[in-house]
């Protein structure tokens, strides 16, 4: 007959555990950190290569520059009086100076590593063509300027969407088959249309026809004097973008989480909880949400990271000064320092988040141990 003593033997002695813990966590940090770093390096370097088409972009720049200079010379009356030789010298000299500014005086492969190193050390440097809205040439200003507006609209939209969809979904998961539930399922495909699509319609209705809300932009032009007036104006301008964003994803998000919660609600221990006589609320909280916390947190973390990349078309439709548009501009102009800046910050954020997520999992889900290791018998 099995005794209590045998059971006790099976458990790992507590003392041995904690010493092993520290070593295990340290090892985990090092290994994970290094892996993530290597991934970041590769990702950034690939981005540099692709953004420069392997160096072809330099050729394009050179060609454009020469064309530009030739045009200027042709349209400049004074230069007509130069001899062909003099003109050539002049053209070469102008080209040399401007090429240097565009970084065309160095071979691409050399530049690629300089970009990589600068990017990784977050020494973002100067942009090639782009200037920040205020005219700064420095990439951290260029990106920094757009950060707050991007976060403002994206954070409000995404967070509103995330929490409203999730809690609505929880509510729905207890009402499977109800009319509301069926409505959500039917409405889910409406999320096939992206946020900017909804945006266009909302603008058409509320701005073009009804004149209730502005067409776009972040604040009235020119901005009203006074702090609260400015805040009010920004809020007014946020209404349509947030609405478009939430409207486009709400149904699908709710559907997704509702299905997710439904699946997890059919776990045995949820039934058990019901059998034990817990209220619906209590079951939701402790038996549905708690065990699925890792997934929810992951989703939330990914949402948070995605906040700052912005959304190109969305920002274009709403004329919002965001990072999405900036990134697109940078890509179109092959402005490597800016592209690298955006990529590397995103990569670091992502790597950091992944790293932290593992730790969060371990805290939140007792089944997970940092660095693997044996589970209970």
């Amino acid at each position: 007959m099995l005794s209590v003593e045998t059971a006790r033997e099976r458990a790992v002695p507590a003392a041995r555990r904690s010493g092993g813990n520290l070593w295990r966590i340290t090892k985990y940090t090092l290994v994970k950190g290094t892996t993530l770093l290597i991934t970041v390096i590769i990702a950034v370097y690939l981005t540099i290569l692709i953004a420069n088409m392997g160096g072809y972009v330099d050729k394009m720049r050179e060609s454009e520059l020469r064309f530009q200079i030739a045009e200027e010379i042709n349209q400049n009356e004074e230069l007509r009086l130069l001899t062909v030789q003099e003109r050539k010298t002049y053209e070469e000299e102008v080209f040399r100076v401007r090429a240097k500014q565009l970084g065309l005086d160095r071979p691409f492969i050399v530049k690629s590593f300089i970009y990589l190193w600068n990017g990784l050390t977050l020494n973002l440097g100067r942009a090639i063509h782009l200037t920040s809205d205020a005219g700064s040439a420095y990439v951290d200003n260029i990106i920094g300027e757009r950060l707050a507006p991007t976060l403002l609209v994206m954070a409000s939209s995404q967070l509103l969407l995330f929490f409203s969809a999730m809690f609505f979904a929880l509510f729905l998961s207890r009402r499977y088959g109800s009319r509301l539930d069926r409505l959500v399922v039917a409405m889910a495909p409406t999320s096939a249309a992206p946020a900017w699509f909804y945006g266009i319609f909302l603008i058409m209705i509320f701005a073009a026809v009804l004149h209730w809300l502005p067409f776009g932009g972040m604040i009235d032009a020119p901005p009203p004097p006074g702090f609260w007036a400015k805040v009010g104006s920004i809020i007014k301008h946020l209404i349509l973008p947030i609405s478009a964003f939430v409207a486009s994803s709400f149904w699908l998000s709710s559907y997704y989480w509702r299905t997710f919660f439904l699946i997890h609600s059919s776990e045995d221990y949820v039934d058990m909880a019901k059998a034990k006589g817990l209220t619906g609320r209590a079951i939701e909280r402790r038996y549905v949400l708690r065990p699925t916390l890792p997934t929810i947190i992951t989703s939330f973390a990914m949402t948070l990271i995605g906040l700052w990349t912005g959304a190109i078309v969305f920002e274009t439709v709403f004329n919002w000064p965001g990072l999405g548009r900036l990134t697109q501009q940078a890509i179109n102009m092959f402005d490597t320092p800016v592209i690298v800046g955006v990529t590397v910050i995103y990569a670091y954020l992502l790597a950091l988040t992944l790293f932290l997520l593992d730790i969060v999992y371990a805290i939140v889900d007792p089944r997970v141990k940092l660095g693997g290791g044996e589970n209970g018998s």
Partner: protein
Amino acid sequence: MNKMLLEVNNLKLYFRTKKGPVQAVDDVSFKLERGKTLAVVGESGCGKTSLSKAILRLLPRNIMEYSGEIILDGEDIMKYPEDRFRREIRWKKIAMVPQAAMNSLNPVLRILDQIIEPLLIHNRDMNRDQGLARVKEMFRIVGLPEDFLYRYPFELSGGMRQRATIAMALVTNPELVILDEPSSALDLLTQANLMNVLKRIKHEFGTTFILITHDIGTASELADEIAVMYAGEMVEKCHAEYFYTDARHPYSRKLMSSVPTLREDKELVFIPGQPPSLINPPTGCRFAERCDKRFAKCSEHPPTFDLEHDQQVQCWLYTDREEVKHA
């Protein structure tokens, strides 16, 4: 206090499925005295688990029919509104140890938190310390070391989890505990252990058990009454001692013959064929197809006949006996 703790009359539980309605519990009636153990036996899929769920009103989403009477301690709890049922019945009066307790415990909560939960919910005036004391007591009873309270379910072996679940079922001192296949996933030694625990509890607290199992042998240790379910119906019910020697229903007899006994040299018989589908079950006796004793009358649905020693059987073979009328 009534002597009769539980009286189930005409309990029906049908599910809606794509293929048609599944008549999982089809007009089941029985009585159970306080302090006694009823073993409900039958093949897989005969509706035993559905019966336990029906009693605790753990209904699935695709419920189609749920009717009948469940009279607990003199009151028909079927009539209770949902919230009253939750507050007064679940875990307070009736508790359950489900089949495959592997997954019955919330993986992210400590054992202690899960066990103490129903205690605190159903007893507002109890504080945590009092609860803790009670839980520790439960652990003692089921024979688990105290420090396992602070562990998570995945750190326990199957057998330990089963015992923890039992502790959880008992912590509020319910009057009726339904155990669904409590030892089917466990090895023999643990099984035996478990039975001992149950016997001890029954002895110490006088808890009424409904033990659902397909393992008649194990049931014999604990059961006072045996009920046999076949295809959603309760085809026989009698006191345990008579069952093993004098089962009446052909199916019950066949069941008994299929159990190996240690000392007898028995030729094991198996029952050919499959139980009928619970969707559109046959109109006559549901066992008729596999029964070697069938005859013409079996194409009609047999009523329940009352035999001696409070034995009831649903079979045309006993047509000369009195029919049991259920309310």
